[in-house]
Structure formats: structure tokens, C-alpha cells
């Protein structure tokens, strides 16, 4: 760092506090307009709060097929009834129930049913384009994900690590309830849990290489991400990465039993990397430096 750069860098540290504060909280006008409704998805925040409070060992005991990924965002956190319109979850996030699709979701399935009876609108749908995205109502949810201290830890916690191309996407209202017959009051939503549905985006990814057990090379895996679009509304988890059709990515995934051959991003903050086939860059701000060589070495 040259002396001139250093002087400027130090000078910037003395910018007035009010300028820093207003700059850091600034949102572009276009985004302000779209943020008319700030609603938390009880879904993600709730389960993740449970995950954080309960800890990994407890979760793995009750959710043998799931991981830290938001596998059941519809479950309410301790003390929060599904009908409570505005509660505060364990992580301090204001929560509201996940908005239901129109028409109203189907009645809750029997606990023994493997999948809920899907309402008409829960059928897979193509991206809605009737209203321009910029004019749709934006509903933002907040989720807290586990943070992995190293690339190795991220890889170890992933069930699948794949290099693939995103072929298509669709949105689907899904019941993410986890059926369990235990008596655990909060971790077993199979009893009186709410029957809300959660909007999920499902990406079909053509697997070019699987670094950790996944669909075979050349196969297709479905990558699930919370949020999506309806005709007039965009549901988004704040800070979730944008996944684009035809782009190539490295995915760190957690298997989920919700969809055949489907898997969730392990977290929204470190699990997605864009690549051109030679270089790799993190799509999220907390991602790690990654290269194909490092990936190969990691898997040795």
C-alpha cells in the first residue's frame, strides 16, 4: 500500500458518523419502493431459531434425514403459535406466518400421509411473468444460518458437492413439515403443527461433476431454495444468492427428503460459487476462496 493510499485510507476512517450511518442504511429508491411490505417468513426464521437453540446433536436425533438447511420452515418456534400474527422468534426476528397461496392451502394432511394433498396452486409452475418483476410486491423474510469456519467444515457438513449448470427453475408451494412420532413438543410438528405451505424455488441442475456423493455425472439434481415468485408477489429471504439459468455453479448441498432427487443449499451465505469452468468466485459475501484444485484436494 503506497503512502498516498494509506493517508487516504486513514482519512476515510474519520468521515463524520452521521454520513457513515446514513450511507450504511441507504437503500436505492427502486428497492425502497419494492420493500413496501417487510414480512418475516415465520418459516425460515422459526425453524432456524429452533435449529440454533436446539443444536446440531438434538436436531440430528430428531431429523435423521435433514441437516441445518431449512428443511421445515413452517414449524413454529417455541412459544409461537402458528396463529400468532406477529411474534418474536428465538433469534429476535419479528415473524409472521408464511403467507399462504391463493386459494387457501389444503387442509393439513394426516400425520401418516407422506406428502400433503397439494392445493391447486402448489403444483409446479413456470416463473410468473404477467407483471414485471420490478412492479411486484416484495416480501422479505429473514433467516439465520449456521456459519462454517472453514471450507473443510463446509464440505464436511455438505451431503453433496456438485459442479453443474442450471437448466431451469420453477416455483412450488410446499409443505415442509417433518413427520415424526416422538413426543417432543416443539421438534415434532407432526401433531398440531400448522398446515401452512412455503414457496420454494426448485432449480434443475445438470451435474457436470459430483465431488461428493450426488446424482451421477450427467444426471439432474433439484436444488431447492426458500422463496420464489407468484403472479404478483416476490418472496425472498434477505441476502439469499441469485441463481441464474444457464450459469455454472459449485453447490454445497444438504439432502432433503421433500423432493425426489432434491437438495437444499447448505446455507445462503457460503454454499454457492459461480464458475466459468476455470475460475471460481463466491456468489455470497461470506463464501470462501475456492478453486478446482482446492476442491480436488479437499475431496482426497
Amino acid at each position, binding site marked *: 500500500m503506497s503512502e498516498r493510499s494509506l493517508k487516504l485510507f486513514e482519512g476515510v476512517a474519520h468521515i463524520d458518523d*452521521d454520513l457513515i450511518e446514513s450511507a450504511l442504511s441507504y437503500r436505492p429508491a427502486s428497492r425502497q419502493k419494492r420493500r413496501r411490505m417487510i414480512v418475516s417468513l415465520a418459516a425460515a426464521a422459526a425453524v432456524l431459531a429452533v435449529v440454533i437453540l436446539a443444536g446440531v446433536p438434538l436436531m440430528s436425533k430428531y431429523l435423521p434425514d435433514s441437516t441445518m438447511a431449512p428443511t421445515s420452515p413452517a414449524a413454529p418456534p417455541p412459544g409461537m403459535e402458528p396463529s400468532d400474527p406477529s411474534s418474536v422468534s428465538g433469534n429476535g426476528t419479528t415473524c409472521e406466518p408464511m403467507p399462504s397461496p391463493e386459494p387457501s392451502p389444503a387442509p393439513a394432511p394426516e400425520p401418516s400421509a407422506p406428502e400433503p394433498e397439494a392445493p391447486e396452486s402448489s403444483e409446479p409452475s413456470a416463473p410468473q411473468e404477467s407483471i414485471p418483476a420490478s412492479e411486484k410486491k416484495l416480501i422479505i423474510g429473514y433467516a439465520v444460518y449456521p456459519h462454517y469456519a472453514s471450507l473443510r467444515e463446509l464440505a464436511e457438513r455438505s451431503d453433496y458437492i456438485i459442479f453443474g449448470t442450471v437448466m431451469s427453475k420453477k416455483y412450488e408451494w410446499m409443505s415442509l413439515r417433518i413427520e415424526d412420532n416422538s413426543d417432543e413438543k416443539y421438534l415434532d410438528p407432526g401433531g398440531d403443527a400448522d398446515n401452512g405451505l412455503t414457496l420454494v424455488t426448485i432449480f434443475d441442475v445438470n451435474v457436470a461433476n459430483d465431488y461428493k456423493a450426488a446424482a451421477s455425472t450427467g444426471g439432474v439434481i433439484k436444488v431447492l431454495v426458500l422463496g420464489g415468485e407468484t403472479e404478483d408477489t416476490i418472496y425472498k429471504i434477505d441476502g439469499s444468492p441469485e441463481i441464474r439459468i444457464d450459469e455454472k455453479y459449485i453447490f454445497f448441498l444438504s439432502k432433503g427428503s421433500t423432493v425426489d432427487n432434491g437438495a437444499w443449499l447448505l446455507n445462503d451465505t457460503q454454499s454457492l460459487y459461480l464458475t466459468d469452468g476455470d475460475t471460481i468466485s463466491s456468489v455470497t459475501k461470506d463464501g470462501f476462496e475456492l478453486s478446482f484444485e482446492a476442491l480436488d484436494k479437499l475431496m482426497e
Partner: protein
Amino acid sequence: MEDVLIVELFFRRDESAITETARKYGPLCRSIAINLLGSPEDAEECVNDVYERAWSSIPPQRPEKLGAWLGKLARNVSVDRFRRERAQKRFNGVETALTELEECLPSPDTPEREMESRELGAAISAWLRRQSEEDRALFVRRYFSGEALRSIARDMGVPENRLSQRMTRLRRSLRDALSKEGIAV
């Protein structure tokens, strides 16, 4: 929790001040540290240092803008760590010799240097106040928080190359403003 209440907790030496600070401003401090250091592990240590320094600085200090104050603290702690680690990596002979010779020069952390930095900060602040709100946010996020251009572009919904051109114009404008003020950098 309101900033004023968090500061009050510090004054009462109530340790929940740290919890509340972490809850409200932990993400801000962490993102600044990660932007500047690039390592989540280092960033986490820096954030803990920020809480420690806040604990030992309040009182007597009573920051009016707690977020900005903590942001500055996170930046300073991160820069200190960056310098320390860079110094430790100087192992080859030439670097070692030059580092030893540097000791012959007056320390950069002199009161004069500090005053110079403050004057520069005041000039940059005055220039920033003449910019649009969006340009102010751009400048602060890039040069105070160290956020990557790509990340800012994504957040603001503009192409990265367009943002890059805009940053070039902003830097040129700052250079002209500092020249007019007679501040040589």
C-alpha cells in the same frame, strides 16, 4: 434495543451490553472485518476485539451514533490486524532489511499524522455532503466498509462495469475537491 439503552448498559457495566451490541451491530462489524481481511476466522476475532474495545472505551466515551462508532472500531481493528499479519509475512532478506531501516523513520502514528488524517476526514466529509445520497452510500460502502464492487452492484441492481465507471468519476471528483482545498495526498 435503542442505541441509547445499549450505551446505558455499558455505563452500568452490565454485560448484556455486549449481547445487545452483538445482536444489533455484530453483522455490520463482521461484514466490515470480512471485507477488509477476507477471512471469516480473522474477522470473527476482530469482532470480538471490537466488543472488548467497546467495553473498555464506554465509559468514558458516550457515542452518539453507536453503529457508526462501532463500524469505525471494526475498521480500525481490522486494519491493525492486516498490518500486523503483513509485517509477519516479511521473511525474505530484502523485506527484513527494509523493515529494519523503516525504524529509522519517524513513526507514522504521530500526533501530526493523526491530525492530518482528521483534516483529511473532514475534507472528505465535506465533499461527501455535496454528493447525492446514492453516491455517498457507494463511497462509504466501498472505501469505509471495503465492500466488493460486485456485491454493491448486485445490491443496487446496476451492472458492475457501470458502477466501476461511476466510482472512477467519484474518485476524480474527490481528487479535484482535495486539490481545491489545498490538501496534498
